[in-house]
């Protein structure tokens, strides 16, 4: 009888190691999915009473949709303000650290930015409440006086400064280190080869960055912004402290508006029964918003796959 010489003669320890490793990796991957699934199930079951209840029993008395959409809009506005401020600054700082700053400056600066991420959000909230909000009052008054015809700057301006705009700025500061750190790492990974290709063609440093660094880093920047957005959407403590809540209004410099996360945090301790289900349903909506935003981001990255340089 002939035996196949390629058949392994003994089950070596190397193969056992392979099996253990692939098993562990699989378990880790499955665990993530199970956790996500469990969270989704929990939210669905706990939120269910809200959807079957009589609309008159829901807070506001006009059903769940009427209750949720103002705070959905509020959440999106707060996150949008944060990203509009933090994205350009974050990318700019990251580029400065990776390509412009002398190495002696770049190291400490990067370290300080990373430290920003380590500050607890309650501290940001306290700072926003006690320092930033009063400081912004004159600016809000100026905006109301001069740009008041634009609905988002309609007066009279808040006298405490505890507005959506303030909350957005606090969120921007909190999101900034995420966007900066991730972007910087990606910028530093740009192949020298591509940078030199641009320089050798006669590109200025800025042209080199637009030709080789930014295109290479694009998917990474999108991921960084999405992670920042995730934090901005879900941030609870800072918004709860900074924002003087109220009904949905277009003006960003008056008291008013509310975000989902802060709404849940402020009302959760005293909620029971249907009110509790309502808040969990609000959480479910937040979960869905984050999911959709991430899927859109993935879609944007995938659309440019052919030109990603991965082939």
């Amino acid at each position: 009888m002939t035996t196949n010489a390629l058949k392994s003669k003994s089950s070596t320890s190397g193969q056992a190691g392979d099996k253990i490793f692939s098993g562990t990796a699989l378990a880790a991957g499955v665990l993530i999915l199970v956790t996500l699934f469990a969270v989704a199930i929990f939210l669905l079951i706990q939120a269910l009473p809200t959807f079957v209840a009589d609309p008159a029993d829901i807070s506001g008395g006009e059903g769940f949709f009427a209750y949720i959409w103002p705070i959905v809009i509020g959440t999106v506005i707060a996150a949008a303000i944060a990203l509009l401020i933090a994205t350009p600054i974050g990318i700019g700082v990251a580029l400065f650290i990776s390509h412009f700053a002398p190495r002696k400056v770049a190291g400490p600066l990067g370290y300080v930015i990373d430290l920003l991420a380590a500050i607890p959000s309650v501290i940001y909230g306290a700072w926003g409440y006690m320092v930033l909000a009063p400081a912004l009052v004159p600016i809000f008054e100026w905006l109301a006086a001069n740009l008041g015809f634009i609905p988002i700057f309609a007066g009279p301006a808040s006298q405490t400064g505890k507005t959506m705009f303030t909350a957005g700025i606090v969120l921007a500061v909190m999101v900034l280190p995420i966007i900066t750190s991730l972007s910087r790492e990606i910028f530093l990974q740009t192949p020298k080869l591509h940078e030199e290709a641009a320089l050798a063609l006669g590109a200025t440093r800025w042209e080199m960055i637009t030709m080789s660094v930014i295109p290479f880093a694009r998917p990474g920047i999108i991921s960084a912004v999405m992670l920042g957005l995730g934090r901005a959407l879900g941030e609870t403590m800072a918004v709860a402290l900074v924002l003087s809540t109220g009904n949905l209004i277009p003006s960003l410099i008056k008291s008013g508006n509310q975000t989902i996360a802060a709404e849940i945090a402020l009302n959760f301790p005293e909620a029971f029964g249907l009110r509790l289900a309502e808040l969990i349903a609000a959480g479910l909506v937040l979960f869905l918003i984050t999911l959709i935003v991430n899927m859109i981001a993935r879609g944007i990255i995938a659309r440019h796959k052919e030109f990603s340089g991965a082939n």
Partner: protein
Amino acid sequence: MAKRIDVNALNVYYSKFLAVEDISINIEPKSVTAFIGPSGCGKSTFLRTLNRMHEVIPGGRVEGEVLLDGDDLYGPGVDPVTVRSQIGMVFQRPNPFPTMSIKDNVLAGVKLNGKKISRSDADSLVEKSLRGANLWNEVKDRLDKPGSGLSGGQQQRLCIARTIAVKPDVILMDEPCSALDPISTLAIEDLINELKSDYTVVIVTHNMQQAARVSDKTAFFNIAGTGKPGKLIEYNDTAAIFSNPEQKATEDYVSGRFG
């Protein structure tokens, strides 16, 4: 078009480390000059000083002068960006911009510094440059596809097309075939022969047969030992370097006795 290069007493440093010492060399226009020598002898470093790419590396600096038709590249007020647009460079590994189409890769250098180009001019320049790099027939049907989808040899010719599209005076090539198979290498060598009629070409190569095949003149660089600076040992007509070198070290190297 096709300018001469004269280098006088050039020292090249990495911070405090003297990497290449006291090079003087005259490179004729419309010729191919090959730099050969063992690894680490400073030939690539020296090549990168000819279009001021050496200073891109932190700590990189030079002493001495490099004259392009009499104008010092390192003179006061000279912008390295201008120098590099007149002295093009092809690198060891093909490096088309991965996020750009083949067409945009060719036009990448042309559109720099805020220059505008009309669509019809762009199309004819793309065709002319790709024909000049012997690549047109292979890519004319997929100009809008990414450059990174081409084979290694095609990518390198795309890089050459990108370099000649900006109409440089000199083309520097840093071991352009070392990552390519023999067929692609042959295609590049044929191309170098054609480029000679319009450009001054300087090529660094590890492959002595290649130097013998493509170049008019050859410069042999050597290094006395690790940590010592690289020096230009001998510079002469290629035929003389390979058949009748004046220096013992050159003879040992080209006959394969070391390096």
